[in-house]
């Protein structure tokens, strides 16, 4: 009798983690260009922001060095966690291979998440290269205090969990629509904008800021980075982390619900 213990579950997931990690190394060229790309992007971004700030000391209460560092860090995070390729889930649904996945002993959600984490870890060298470039150009500074750094780590983990959950949620729309290509593209660029990856939310128009702060996206990049730069302290810091945690829980719940409906659709309705 096969006993499904925590140990066996972890072993199974580790295999998928490895698959994600290895898939990054499988294409040596892709990894290399990822690094080169981010180094170029980091360099040019630093220049753009410095030129933008020429003649200003502060804009929207933010100084030049902070804005530059933010742009570089956001680019690094994006390249590690949100690569061009989403999970293979949508393709597998369209090709009808999803039935096989559903028969596997591990839950599909943990399968996908394990693989996504593996891929992310595989891409860490890219982010590292970007960070080094930023440091070399004098564009990046470390957080002011150790507390800020530790808080950032917690916040970043929550942000990453947020990103992966929403990624998977959006991928699951493949079960209901053929238009998955359009949905994914809209999501990718919409979230790049709303998460603060493209532009720090400090610079957004006044009327847009409240709307964005109510969405889960700002918890992905803007929240962790505003902690890195020490703009949140004390109660505000805890509040931010709480909101992030809240979003992760809500999204995870939503994911389970959507997944159940998807399984129902495929298994019962033969979707």
């Amino acid at each position, binding site marked *: 009798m096969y006993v499904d213990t925590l140990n066996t579950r972890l072993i199974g997931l580790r295999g998928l983690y490895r698959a994600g990690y*290895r898939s990054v190394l*499988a294409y*040596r060229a892709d*990894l290399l260009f990822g690094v080169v790309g981010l180094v170029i992007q980091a360099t040019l971004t630093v220049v753009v922001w410095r030129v933008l700030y020429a003649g200003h000391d502060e804009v929207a209460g933010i100084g030049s060095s902070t804005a530059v560092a933010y742009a570089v860090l956001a680019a690094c995070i994006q390249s590690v966690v949100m690569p061009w390729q989403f999970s293979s889930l949508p393709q597998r649904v369209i090709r009808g291979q999803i039935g096989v996945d559903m028969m596997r002993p591990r839950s599909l959600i943990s399968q996908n998440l394990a693989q996504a984490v593996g891929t992310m870890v595989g891409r860490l060298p890219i982010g590292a290269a970007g960070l080094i470039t930023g440091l070399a150009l004098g564009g990046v500074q470390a957080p002011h205090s150790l507390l800020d750094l530790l808080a950032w780590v917690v916040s970043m983990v929550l942000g990453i969990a947020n990103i992966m959950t929403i990624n998977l949620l959006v991928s699951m729309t493949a079960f209901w629509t053929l238009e998955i290509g359009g949905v994914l593209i809209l999501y990718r660029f919409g979230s790049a904008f709303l998460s603060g990856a493209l532009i720090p939310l400090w610079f957004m128009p006044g009327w847009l800021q409240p709307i964005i702060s109510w969405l889960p996206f700002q918890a992905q990049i803007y929240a962790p980075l505003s902690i890195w730069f020490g703009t949140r302290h004390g109660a505000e810091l805890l509040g931010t982390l709480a909101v992030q945690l809240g979003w992760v829980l809500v999204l995870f719940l939503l994911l389970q619900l959507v997944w159940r409906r998807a399984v129902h659709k495929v298994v019962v309705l033969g979707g």
Partner: protein
Amino acid sequence: MTTPIIEVADLTKEFWRPDVRPGRFAGTRSLFTRARKITKAVDGISFHIDPGELVGFLGPNGAGKSTTIKMLTGILVPTSGTVTVAGQVPWRDRRRNARTIGAVFGQRTQLWYDLPLRDSFEIIRDLYTMDPATYRTRLGEFTELLDLDEFIDTPVRSLSLGQRMRGDLVAAMLYAPPILYLDEPTVGLDVVAKGKIREFVAEVNAGRRTTVILTTHDMDDVERLCRRVVIIDHGKILYEGDVEMLKAQYVTSRDIVVHCTDFDATTISSPFAQVISADPFKATLRFAPETTAAPKVVHDLTSRYPITDLSVLEPDLEDVIRQLYTERTPAAARNTGS
């Protein structure tokens, strides 16, 4: 002596890829390695094909068979050696070569996936600058030969494998190229479909004198269509010549099955053959064709026993090929002239 339409001399093709020892961090190491592993996919092969022949190309997967075909069609550039097809070098005179050949690849269609089958034919008609009247006549002939009427207006993506294969065959022959390459054209098809394809190929070869090069794993294809075969393994030619001669050389034994109604077949024996199996109604005997001719054994059995039915089994080509593959030595020593 007819001039060969295809001439291949000392043809060689080498590939290389990064060489990494498996083990920990093999994936990461492959990013930095410079060592290369060179594979000789095709190693100095030579042969020729006369116009109007129907030649079978056989060989295990990865043996260099497809690589050879790709060099013949001009898809790959040889590392060394020469290929001449209808007086042209395929990879150099690519466009002119394209007009003299038709090709069907079993795995991948050349038809336009989203458009009706008929549209693909029209596109080919235009691309190959066919005369409209010739196109109409020929399409009419082929439509009848292969029963295309029922699906000629269906999008290619909705066709069954058999229908798609028929469509691909027509598309390849539409502009009447003198040479036709077929790569596994009957794989995955049902018996009826296979029959139709073979009929078409035979007709195109006999009726229009199209030179046909048939790559296949299906021995029935070879038995029914090919007079000559080229067998390639490990990049070299294992055998090149007549199918019949191949069988004669490699077949060490043949079987005779005899049937008796009122006689106990288990008592049958022969000085020329060995009993393999026997039940009261049927006995199977094995003899060596090298030492004893079939008629002699037949005569011996029929003159001494009341046999109601008798059949001499054809040597199984598949067994012959399998033996060849296991031996893996070029047939030059055993080939008594081809």
